[in-house]
């Protein structure tokens, strides 16, 4: 998965993005070195396009990322060799468990408490999943830090029916997925982040309104090192407005230019390019279980959930896939793989689930399953067919339930892909190469080739020519001598690929009236062979 580095700043002509060198020397202008911070410099902000950043801060991410159904749960983190409670759910909090307590103290308060180690990997996965989900609201989603997601929504407002509606939709969606979030909207990403962290549920659309609101923010909501924050507070500076009143050079000397640049970016004086999150092209999701399971119904239910998220993943991209790979992991033996194929690119959970059910019946799991993984094959644009307008409402006349492609994939899912085939002609004189089997799942190639052969061919072809015994030059079939009705048709070809043939073909009839297609080999030994039955 490649992350495209994309800057949201568009109006580059009017406002050139400062290079790294320029950024390191923001104090070149003597006016800004001395007195208090000057009012917002309009020249550096893109005026042509207004940006609006929607920040989602997930304060309870460590707790919510943990997929546990336990009633009393606390997330612990190791600090200086001691496991301390980082977050506790409502049941645990009610029992008096507070963040910062040691795990032993927490267990003493509530013996039924479940302690779960914090997993940053898991939190990152959850963030990525949410970012993927948020891509439906904006073309520009960014993961900023451990628990912050940013969306650029200026272009999405009209589509989603205005800011209040968009906000409501996002928050409802997050709640439905079990996340509590603080949200804020501001013209710069950093300002939006700080406002969200301060839990100011504000929405600032104009750049000029940003300053007064930011000035009131306490220092606690800035993601600055604790030491710096403490020394600022010791200096009597408790809000961002106090910071802004300090001389720039002195502030930079004490706390580093980085802090100063941050304030400038938040106020929109400097551009703040962000990385755009790009969801991977292929879907891959795991479902891990807390204990091994072997019950089919439960496993199917898990697969269905995975298929549902797979459908949502493809829906956002208007894509479908032809292949799905399930892996069922076991504790001891190697994972059991299951591959599903579809004739046409599809994403519908229902159809994939139907196919899976057919295959699942025949699946033999050597051991109980501990985790399930679903990977999708190459995604392709969905082929959309027009539905038929069927005004036929007679009860008995039923619509065709599914297309031939669906039928072929159903059959292939149950009895194997090699067992379902289509046939087509090949431009070839040798009878055994004049046709071929095709995979109906990959290509329904139209058989445009038509040969106008005046010589009759048999409807049944033997897989291999069968040697016939002969009696004084005439072939015998089941003991009786064959009468040659028609022929010979001489086929002498194939010298180019070592499979050359030289045969005289006849239509023959046996005593009971059966019509056979026989040939006499003209190479090596002149034996008679049965090659087909006219049926």
């Amino acid at each position, binding site marked *: 998965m490649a992350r495209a580095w994309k800057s949201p700043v568009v109006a580059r002509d009017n406002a050139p993005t400062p290079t790294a060198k320029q950024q390191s020397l923001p104090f070149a202008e003597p006016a800004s070195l001395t007195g208090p911070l000057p009012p917002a410099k309009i020249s550096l902000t893109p005026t042509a396009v207004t940006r609006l950043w929607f920040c989602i801060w997930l304060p309870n991410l460590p707790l919510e990322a943990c997929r546990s159904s336990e009633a009393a749960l606390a997330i612990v983190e190791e600090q200086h060799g001691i496991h301390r409670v980082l977050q506790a759910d409502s049941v645990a909090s009610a029992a008096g468990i507070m963040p910062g307590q040691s795990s032993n103290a927490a267990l003493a308060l509530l013996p039924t408490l479940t302690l779960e180690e914090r997993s940053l990997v898991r939190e990152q996965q959850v963030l990525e999943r949410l970012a993927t989900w948020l891509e439906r609201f904006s073309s520009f989603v960014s993961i900023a830090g451990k628990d912050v997601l940013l969306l650029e929504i200026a272009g999405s407002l009209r589509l989603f029916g205005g800011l209040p509606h968009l906000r409501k939709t996002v928050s409802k969606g997050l709640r439905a997925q079990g996340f509590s979030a603080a949200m804020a909207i501001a013209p710069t990403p950093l300002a939006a982040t700080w406002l969200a962290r301060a839990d100011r549920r504000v929405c600032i659309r104009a750049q000029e309104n940003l300053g007064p609101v930011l000035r009131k923010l306490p220092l606690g909501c800035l993601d600055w090192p604790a030491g710096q924050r403490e020394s600022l507070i010791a200096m009597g500076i408790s809000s961002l407005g106090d910071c802004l009143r300090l001389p720039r050079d002195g502030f930079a000397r004490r706390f580093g230019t980085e802090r100063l640049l941050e304030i400038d970016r938040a106020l929109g004086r400097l551009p703040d390019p962000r990385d755009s999150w790009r969801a991977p092209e292929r879907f891959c999701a795991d479902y891990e279980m807390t204990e091994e399971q072997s019950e089919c119904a439960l496993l199917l239910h898990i697969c269905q959930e995975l298929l549902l998220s797979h459908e949502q993943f493809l829906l956002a991209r208007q894509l479908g896939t032809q292949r799905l790979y399930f892996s069922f992991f076991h504790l001891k033996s190697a994972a059991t793989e299951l591959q599903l194929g579809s004739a046409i690119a599809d994403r519908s959970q229902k159809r994939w689930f139907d196919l899976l059910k057919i295959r699942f019946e025949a699946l033999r799991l050597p051991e109980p399953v501990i985790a399930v993984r679903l990977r999708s094959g190459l995604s392709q644009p969905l082929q959309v067919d027009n539905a038929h307008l069927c005004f036929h409402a007679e009860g008995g006349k039923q619509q065709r339930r599914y297309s031939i492609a669906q039928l072929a994939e159903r059959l292939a899912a149950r009895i194997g892909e090699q067992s379902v085939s289509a046939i087509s002609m090949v431009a070839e004189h040798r009878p055994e190469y004049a046709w071929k089997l095709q995979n109906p799942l990959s290509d329904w190639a139209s058989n445009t080739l038509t040969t106008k052969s005046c010589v009759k061919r048999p409807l049944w072809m033997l897989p291999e020519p069968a040697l016939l015994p002969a009696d004084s030059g005439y072939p015998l079939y089941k003991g009786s001598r064959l009468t040659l009705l028609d022929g010979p048709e001489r086929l002498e070809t194939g010298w180019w690929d070592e499979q050359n043939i030289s045969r005289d073909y006849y239509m023959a009839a046996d005593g009971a009236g059966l019509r056979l297609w026989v040939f006499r080999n003209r190479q090596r030994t002149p034996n008679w062979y049965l090659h087909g039955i006219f*049926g």
Partner: protein
Amino acid sequence: MSLEKLLENPRVWRGSSQVGARAGLASGYPKLDRCLPGGGWPFDALTEILIDQYGIGELRLLMPALAQLSREETQTHCSGSAEPGWIAWVAPPFQPYAPALQQCGIDLSRVLIVRPKDDSELLWSAEQALSSGTCAAVLLWPVTLDDQASRRLQLAAEKGHSWAIAFRPLSARQQPSAAALRLELQSTRQGTRVHILKSRGGRPAVLDSLL
């Protein structure tokens, strides 16, 4: 009340031509059509063809009707679907030979060949194909086909408006079957003799040297 009106009454049953029976699918053999109710192969139903060995003309008998099915849209399908139906071959004993099928007028791009591993898979595949509504005809060569299985096929054919054709050995003649039409084929020196054993709404008949 005229006689015609009286005969339209559904309570009046006439043996030779079922009132309200749909027209059959012309078999391409006028002699046979005359003996079949509806003037052709019964659609939406199971047809059984009993043969003592493969290749005595059982395919030749069906080819004109199958060619017609694969080429043109059948009236029995939903009026919105402009596609001709498919012809599924389930477990054929040999390879259906593409050039010969084309010579008989069958559109090869409408042929689906299914090779199940055993009889239970065969019946499942045939049932799926029949009830899908996509296949105009399903040809199957079961090793055994009991009464219950034939009934299932018959129901699936009705559901999907499809034509099921099962090829069975002569020994199956004594077994009961739910098929709407049962034919017995025997090859003689003069040609293939077709014996109509059972015909729903029709009468048994023997047709000498039909093919």
